[in-house]
């Protein structure tokens, strides 16, 4: 069958299944103001000049979800203002897909969609087909996560299912399609003896085959335990060359990143162990430990920080250099900052979340702890629902730790978000 023929078959199935369906919609409008205490003294961002951080900002985010039969779309519109730049507007199609039931046991999905596969709360190493996200905002309060462009076929067998996914983050720009690397993923899920159990395989063109499994189990009426593990041979992750040897006094003339373990036979693994417990008074606690063998170890982090500090000294003027070298040094800091990841740069993390709701009030306390240098992000928040349509929230995010630590060296020491949310 030709490509056009396949599209036609899909559309015919779609039209048949759209009949007699009702429109489902959700709409939310969030306005969030942020006050930010910038960390002027950090070597990562000398005097707030390398990557200037705003001290005040505001975002208005509108999210619209429409579902009609198997068709669904999720649209996001953002208006951002801060004290440094002119207002920016963003429009994103977060999801746009068509789910079709070929039979009672067989479904296909085509389009842009968010697929979540792991049971982890803050970390999902087996979420090989899902968008990147931050452990400090697991609920994606502003609706900024985007789906991937994919086609899936899922077969359901009672309490089991088998899903095959083809992913290609193709872009359409200037009347032309730009195909990306192809990705293939397979998941076999079953529910057996109270265990949610999934086996996962993933391959990306030019990358390494990854295999993993995840599970979840409830014990008694209060305790849930879960875990995920993902393995691969070698790593295509790019590392800054400064982490390899103790020689921080270097200025790179070209992009200093390289795949250090691409040909390695070493097994790289990501592992998550976690659980949640609900107390009789309704307080819920989530605890997770995450290890990522591709993250930096303490020595590598120390070398990276020394490299940053060397270039910070050039920026400060405590090491004299001519203007060309100062600019090259600034560029080196910008390159080095690409090592940082909102999901954590090092290899061991602990995530804790306490949650309590009294009805109209709900309280959440998140602690995201680097288990190697003991720096942390702590986020207490409170949410007050005035009605089912309107709520207010406040959220204080503090980055604490030593000046050489991951979170203690970040650009901001704390920020406060205050928001209002309207929902339909």
């Amino acid at each position: 069958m030709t490509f056009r023929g396949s599209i036609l078959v899909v559309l015919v199935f779609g039209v048949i299944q759209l009949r007699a369906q009702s429109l489902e919609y959700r709409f939310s409008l969030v306005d969030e103001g942020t006050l930010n205490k910038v960390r002027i003294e950090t070597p990562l961002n000398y005097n707030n000049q390398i990557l200037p951080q705003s001290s005040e900002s505001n975002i208005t985010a509108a999210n619209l979800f429409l579902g009609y039969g198997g068709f669904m779309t999720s649209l996001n519109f953002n208006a951002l203002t801060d004290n440094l730049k002119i207002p920016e507007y963003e429009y994103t199609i977060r999801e746009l897909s068509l789910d079709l039931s070929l039979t009672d046991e067989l479904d296909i999905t085509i389009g842009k969609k968010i697929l979540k596969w792991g049971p982890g709360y803050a970390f999902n190493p087996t979420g090989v087909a899902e968008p990147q996200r931050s452990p400090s905002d697991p609920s994606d309060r502003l609706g900024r996560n985007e789906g991937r462009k994919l086609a899936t076929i899922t077969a359901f067998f009672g309490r089991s299912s088998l899903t095959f996914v083809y992913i290609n983050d193709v872009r359409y720009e200037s009347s032309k399609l730009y195909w990306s690397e192809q990705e293939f993923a397979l998941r076999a899920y079953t529910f057996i003896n109270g265990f949610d159990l999934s086996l996962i395989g993933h391959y990306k063109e030019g990358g390494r085959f990854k295999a993993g499994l995840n599970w979840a189990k409830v014990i008694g009426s209060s305790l849930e335990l879960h875990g995920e593990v993902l393995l691969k041979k070698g790593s295509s992750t790019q590392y800054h060359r400064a982490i390899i040897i103790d020689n921080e006094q270097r200025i790179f003339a070209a992009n200093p990143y390289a795949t250090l373990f691409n040909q390695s036979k070493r097994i790289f693994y990501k592992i998550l162990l976690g659980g949640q417990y609900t107390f009789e008074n309704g307080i819920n606690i989530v605890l997770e430990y995450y290890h990522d063998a591709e993250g930096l170890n303490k020595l590598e982090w120390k070398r990276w920080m020394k490299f940053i500090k060397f270039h910070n000294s050039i920026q400060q003027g405590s090491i004299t250099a001519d203007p060309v070298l100062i600019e090259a040094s600034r560029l080196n800091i910008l390159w080095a900052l690409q090592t940082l990841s909102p999901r954590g740069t090092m290899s061991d993390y602990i995530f804790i979340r306490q949650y309590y709701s009294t009805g109209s009030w709900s309280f959440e306390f998140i602690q995201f702890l680097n288990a190697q240098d003991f720096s942390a992000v702590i986020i207490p928040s409170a949410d007050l629902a005035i009605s089912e349509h309107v709520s207010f929230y406040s959220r204080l995010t503090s980055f604490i730790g030593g000046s050489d630590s991951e979170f203690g060296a970040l650009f901001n020491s704390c920020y406060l978000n205050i928001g209002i949310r309207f929902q339909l």
Partner: protein
Amino acid sequence: MNSKLLKIFYAALITVFAYEVQAQSIAAREKKPGNAERLTADEILHLSDYSRNGWDTYFVRTTIQNFEDNKLKEEGVFDVSIKGTDKTLVKFLNADVKGQYLLMVDDDMWIYMPNTRKPIRITPLQRLMGNASNGDVARTRYAQDYTALFKREENIDGIPCFVLELNAKRDGSTYIKIDYWITKTTLRPQKAEIYLTSGKHYKTIHFDVYKEIRGRMLLTQLTITDRLREGRTTIMKYSGYTQKEIPEKYFNKDYLGKLR
């Protein structure tokens, strides 16, 4: 008849009567008097479930109202689809939780959060809303979850009831122990007192209103009173009972993201 024979006759009569009384007492513990004379406690429990569940596979809209000191604090509306004795799917309809689904298969529960597009495994104690636990909405067939023991008979508001003690069959049951009042004549639930593992009296449920719906008397309202937090009550109302076929895959965790 001489007096000796008369004494033997009376002795025999007393023995038989005593035996009959003892036998009836044992029967009262194991089988029940009244119309349900020949039913065991488990059978009474099983029959009482019929007035909380219209058909094998059906849909019902459930409204939950939470009160604090007699003031309405919040109201939640849910579409509940039940298939067989072990599968329940709850769709959340309020604006602040729209798009959420709760899936329960046997004792196991998942909640699908539309923000994160993710089904999360949850425990039975996690609350749906106010005093109503997930199990209060999703698990309405107590005979599946509890074994029953006959405790006594008692009048509630002048209505004669059997009092059963229900004990969880499995760790995953919503509650560990329930004292359950079932009317003798109609075998409908009248009241439940729920206890925590610690032995604390947790909730009292009054099954307030039954209505005839398509030839069946079905529960349309119950009230939950929180015994740990003074002044908190929850009213659950059931409407729109509809017998309906629901595809099996709707009760697969992987399908939650496709539901509308």
